[in-house]
């Protein structure tokens, strides 16, 4: 297959997955019992007219899709309505314009609220991932090189321990120790009510708030990266070109750096991208524990407030980000290793 064919196939597949997620995201919220129309309007003091006005405002008075008035309870409707006047196509149309609906809780556009939070999550996840990747890859390389020695077993056991730690629990423990023993902030992104003398002071304050969440992130993901790196390097080290390199008289350090590390990085790229789903799960937990104003916390808050447009929007944004990250990893991989395109 030519390079372009591979590219198109991967992009087409990612688009299909995104469409699947959009359809799933729309219908889950219509089919499952927590119907947004009722859930958002539970207040008994609301008059019938007020409820109707809210239903019109959020577009809930329109049929869900052709032939179906509502899906839960299932009520059939006219099949001849204009598809553009159904909730589903209005939803898709809004998405195409970058609109994710209006939050029940704050009455602001969901998209605006999510964008603010997206960057906070990227900051936190980015910092945690960089540390975890560097430490995990180094440890994995060493563990594989010293396979079946004390160093290897120690690294293996501690990785398995780190993997078994529930992320939120590790966060709680670190928060407990960090805030009580070391006087670190107990949560949030900035000290409330602080007046910063300059940009530098503001950055320093953010950095202080990031120490504990980033540490949690790093510990949780180091174990996994180390385990994967270890098994990848083990495979690479039993290849014949390692024997050749050894026969040429290269030092162990050179072999590890130029042969083992480079060839193991390829599979790691894919695995780090595939791991993004777990990364998101980690972000939800860590942001909840440390009250970090990111996407994960917005999911947690939306659940508590029954703010369905917010929950729906956050889920969509997270799912699409993960799908796109996977696509980028696929393309990067095929660029780094042209054999993939041919196969």
């Amino acid at each position, binding site marked *: 297959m030519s390079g372009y064919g591979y590219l198109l196939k991967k992009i087409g597949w990612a688009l299909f*997955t995104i469409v*699947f*997620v959009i359809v799933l995201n729309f219908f*889950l*919220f219509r089919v*499952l*019992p*927590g119907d947004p129309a009722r859930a958002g309007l539970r207040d008994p003091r609301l008059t019938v007219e007020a409820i109707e006005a809210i239903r019109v405002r959020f577009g809930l008075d329109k049929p869900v899709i052709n032939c179906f008035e509502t899906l839960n309870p299932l009520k059939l409707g006219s099949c001849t309505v204009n598809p553009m006047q159904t909730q589903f196509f209005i939803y898709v149309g809004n998405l195409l314009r970058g609109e994710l609906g209006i939050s029940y809780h704050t009455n602001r556009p969901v998209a605006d609220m999510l964008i603010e939070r997206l960057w906070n999550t990227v900051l936190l996840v980015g910092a945690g991932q960089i540390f975890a990747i560097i430490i995990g890859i180094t440890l994995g390389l060493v563990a*594989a*090189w*010293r*396979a*079946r*020695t004390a160093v*290897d077993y120690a690294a293996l056991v501690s990785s*398995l*321990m780190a*993997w*078994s*730690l*529930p*992320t*939120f*629990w590790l966060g*709680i*423990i670190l*928060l*407990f120790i960090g805030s*009580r023993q070391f006087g670190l902030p*107990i949560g949030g992104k900035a000290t409330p009510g602080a007046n910063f003398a300059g940009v530098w002071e503001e950055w320093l304050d953010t950095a202080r708030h990031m120490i504990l969440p980033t540490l949690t992130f790093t510990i949780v993901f180091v174990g996994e990266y180390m385990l994967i790196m270890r098994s990848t390097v*083990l495979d690479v*080290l*039993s290849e014949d070109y*390692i*024997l050749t390199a*050894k026969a040429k008289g290269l030092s*162990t350090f050179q*072999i*590890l750096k130029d042969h083992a590390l480079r060839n193991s990085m390829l599979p790691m790229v894919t695995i780090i991208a*595939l791991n993004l*789903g*777990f990364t*998101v*799960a980690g972000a*939800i*937990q860590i942001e*909840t*524990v440390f009250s970090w104003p990111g996407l994960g916390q917005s*999911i*947690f808050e939306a*659940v*508590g407030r029954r703010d369905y447009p917010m*929950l*729906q929007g*956050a*889920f969509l944004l*997270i*799912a699409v980000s*993960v*799908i796109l990250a996977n696509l980028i990893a696929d393309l990067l991989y095929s660029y780094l290793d042209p054999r993939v395109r041919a196969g």
Partner: protein
Amino acid sequence: MTVQVEVSSFTGFWNSFKRNRMGIVGLIMVIAAVAMAVLAPWIAPYDPKAPIQVTIDDIYAPPSPEHWLGTDDAGKDVLSNFIYGARVSLTVGFFASFISIVIGGVIGIVAGFYGGRTENVLMRLTDIMLVIPDLPLAVVLVALTKPSLLNIIFVIGILGWTSTARLVRSQALSVKERKFVLRARAIGASNMYIVRRHILPLVLPLMVANTVLVISLAILNESTLSFLGLSDPTTLSWGQMLNFAFTRGGMSAGAWWALVTPGFGIVWVVLGCTLLGHGLEQVLNPRLETHHLSVGAEMVARPARPPTHAVDARAIEG
């Protein structure tokens, strides 16, 4: 004859497994946790459901001779809650992973065995499920349905089958090409018969190892959902205990006993399952762990017969 082969292959397996130190440690950890859950009414000092009279001093009381691990936000004994909590966490883990394994097993075997368009569709579905982040989807699903134990089991179960499906499919693909499957087909065996008689027995061992790992993931997921406040507030799992301790002032009260204990249970079970699962995997699917720069001990040869022989022999006889 068949029975004899089975028995000897199990003894062989056990002999191999016995020497896997990590696997044995995992097995002991899992057995200890299950024993604690089963024997809860006999070993727990208090009954968590019994009504109690609480004064202000009983709330988040530090460890004392009456309450070895202190009390929680409701003045209840943390140790007893912890012991009973094992029941909820393990139940969710076992049932959810059962659902995952059945879905994953069926999809994997059907895809691997039938191939062609069926395989394509099923594997595409698996790919989609693999790329959609689990936890946000689980949160959405539980938030939209009633937060009950049954719903949590169901949601974790239907989201956790992808790894099993991929594993089973690749195993089924390789078994399908074996000589004895061809022979069985030549003498007119039906697809169902071949799957039941030849594919399943060879796929099953790896599925068992996978099940243990899926259980550990299910328990982690349950604790996370409970911690996020998405579980039935009347059933006290370890995650729920952490939710209460964290959201109801355990942090500012400095009640480390209420925050550390439940997490310790989760780590214990998940680590036990992980060690056991990896141990089983190593025995059932040994990989060479020596290489050109090796400095550690060489991999010991495994005298135990891999379970494949047992089925090979049976196929030839039958």
